[in-house]
């Protein structure tokens, strides 16, 4: 049986479009609204409400371990959740210790502190008394495990080499002494924190990148995590709930358009796939006759 040479036309193009079209369209629909935000409405998911409710229970003086399991790359995805959470914690007058799990992240607390400087000044936040930046203290699981059992055996100074003795961390000996762990993660040392803190009973909430949601969700349902803020969208929803727009809400227009563009590409691909395979089948049948 001879197959006629087939140009395929538009249906073939729809079935096998070059991936670079996806890249181009996605780039345009996401960058446009970022440069000129429209401010479209958003919905708030139940998970964000749960996370928000945990934050609302923080009491003045609570010791919060603010862990940044991220590099610069992932920071941009969860930045909105980090800053919105920090705003709530500062307004609640919690005492905050920043710890990071990646060399790159050592300077990220500085960005966060700068973003909430107004709230920190208004609440009279002082370094050492109310917050402290510990730097790269989670290089591996052994360090996390050791810190959970004997905090001062592992951490003796802050990120600039100043001793932590005399700060509010004097009240911390082991995992039991933290009132809350707020973990912001792309996945680096999060499982270590869950194993050595949350599973022992330290209250823990998390803001993770999109791809981690499915793997972290079971921990919420089993009560190991008290709340899960999902990716940038969760951050935007938290910004909405606390009434303080930030980078998350700004990105949501592009976020929505990006999803819709992808759906359109999927539809085009399926129409093309069915149309083209049907066209091919009809041609084969015709030639067989």
């Amino acid at each position, binding site marked *: 049986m001879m197959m006629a040479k087939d140009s395929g036309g538009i249906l073939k193009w729809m079935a096998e479009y070059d991936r670079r079209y996806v890249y181009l369209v*996605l780039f345009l629909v996401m960058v446009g609204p970022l440069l000129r935000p429209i401010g479209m409405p958003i919905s708030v998911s139940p998970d964000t409400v749960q996370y928000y409710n945990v934050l609302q229970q923080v009491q003045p003086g609570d010791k919060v371990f603010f862990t940044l399991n991220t590099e*610069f790359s992932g920071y941009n995805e969860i930045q909105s959740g980090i800053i919105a959470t920090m705003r709530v914690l500062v307004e609640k007058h919690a005492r905050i210790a920043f710890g990071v799990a990646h060399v790159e992240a050592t300077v990220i607390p500085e960005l966060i502190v700068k973003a909430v400087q107004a709230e920190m000044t208004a609440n009279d936040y002082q370094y050492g008394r109310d917050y402290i930046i510990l730097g790269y203290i989670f290089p591996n699981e052994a*360090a996390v*495990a050791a810190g959970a059992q*004997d905090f001062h055996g592992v951490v003796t100074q802050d990120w600039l080499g100043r001793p932590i003795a005399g700060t509010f961390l004097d009240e911390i000996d082991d995992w039991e002494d933290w009132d809350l762990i707020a973990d912001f993660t792309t996945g680096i040392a999060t499982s270590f924190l869950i194993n050595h803190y949350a599973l022992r009973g330290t209250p823990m909430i998390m803001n993770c990148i999109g791809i981690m949601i*499915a793997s972290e969700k079971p921990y919420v349902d089993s009560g190991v995590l008290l709340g899960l803020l999902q990716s940038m969208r969760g951050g935007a929803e938290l910004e909405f709930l606390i009434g303080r727009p930030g980078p998350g809400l700004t990105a949501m227009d592009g976020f929505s358009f990006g999803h819709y563009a992808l759906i359109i590409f999927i539809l085009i691909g*399926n129409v093309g796939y069915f149309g083209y395979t049907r066209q091919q089948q009809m041609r084969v049948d015709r030639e067989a006759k």
Partner: protein
Amino acid sequence: MAEILKNRQLQIIVMLLSFLFVFLPYFLNVPQLNTASTKLITITSIVTAFTVALAVLAQFRRGINIINRRSRGWYFKAYMLMTLVLMLGFSLISRETGPYHWVMFAVVNPLSSVNYGILAFYMASTAARAFRARNTKALLLLLSGFIVLIYQAPLTGAYFTGFEPIALYLGSTFGLAAGRMFLISVTVGAIVFGVRVIMGNEPSVLGLSKEE
């Protein structure tokens, strides 16, 4: 001495003892064991830090060797070693201000972020290619993918609330069940793998061959 330290039996014994010192105190209420475990873990984390330093040094020597041999792409290696030394020097001057600070915010941050952003394009093109209703299973994947995607767009929920219960149902039933089973199977796999390592049945992870 080096030969003794490379001895397979010795390595396995050290591994087994280290394992027991960390494993048992998690379950047993023996304060002395707990203290020993904490000390061992602290020692491990210090040793690991030194190991990283040694590894950097080894990498440095390897890089110099490549530059000396003028192997293919040697200039990239030279560039990498130069930046390594420069950043080390900058960080010793100051981490709060100065060149270290500038490099982190003006170079590392944007480069790292752009590379991460590119991931969105890869994900999108994969999804666009993979979601084809070729058979019943693929059709189910396409339908659930469609519902979750449309729900994930924040604008959808603001106007059409109908997708939310279906997307949440899919996530909290099929999605969660798959997630839990994944966790269980990975945990079981990790334990069995761990036992095999301790028994010396995974020699490759120690850099050894079966016959050694």
